[in-house]
């Protein structure tokens, strides 16, 4: 059985989802790459920001 911590699961989720979003939502390879990278940064960035927000709410 695979045991991933929360952050590793988020990074993997963001990576695979961003690849699919990039390829399917844009027409040319450079734009696909940029959009995939943009989605990945938003996925991971949102998780980090929301995690800190929840940390400050809890403390």
């Amino acid at each position: 059985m695979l045991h991933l911590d929360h952050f590793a699961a988020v990074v993997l989720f963001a990576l695979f989802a961003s690849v699919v979003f990039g390829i399917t939502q844009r027409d040319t390879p450079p734009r696909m790459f940029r959009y995939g990278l943009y989605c990945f940064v938003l996925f991971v960035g949102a998780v980090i920001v929301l995690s800190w927000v929840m940390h400050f709410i809890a403390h």
Partner: protein
Amino acid sequence: MATSPNKKNQAESGFVYLPLIAGWLVPGAGHFLLRKWGRGALLSLSILAMFSIGIAMQGKIYAGAHDILEILGMAGDLGNGLLYFVSRAAGWGADQVTITTGDYGTRFIVVAGLLNVIAAVDAHNLRTGRKV
């Protein structure tokens, strides 16, 4: 990129929904049929990896539809195409989620199915010429 008339004719001949159905049944197959090898390989790798990680994390494969959440989960799982039916037949995944990673695994499997549907629709758009 310019497409030669011969290749264009090959892509435009045959059953118009074939890439959509093939892409749903096997992740990336719709793009492979349209000779989009790189895109197909990346889509296939991403969706298969996501599904496999979900199974390895003891995620649940939705089998019944007892309430609205289970119906939605099953709809997402069905997006995996043949992977769903093979995993049901082989008894992969957990019957009940008992650990946190199992819950993550369940979401990985559902999202892999939803991403596969997006990829299959993309293959259909390529086939009809809506996308290049």
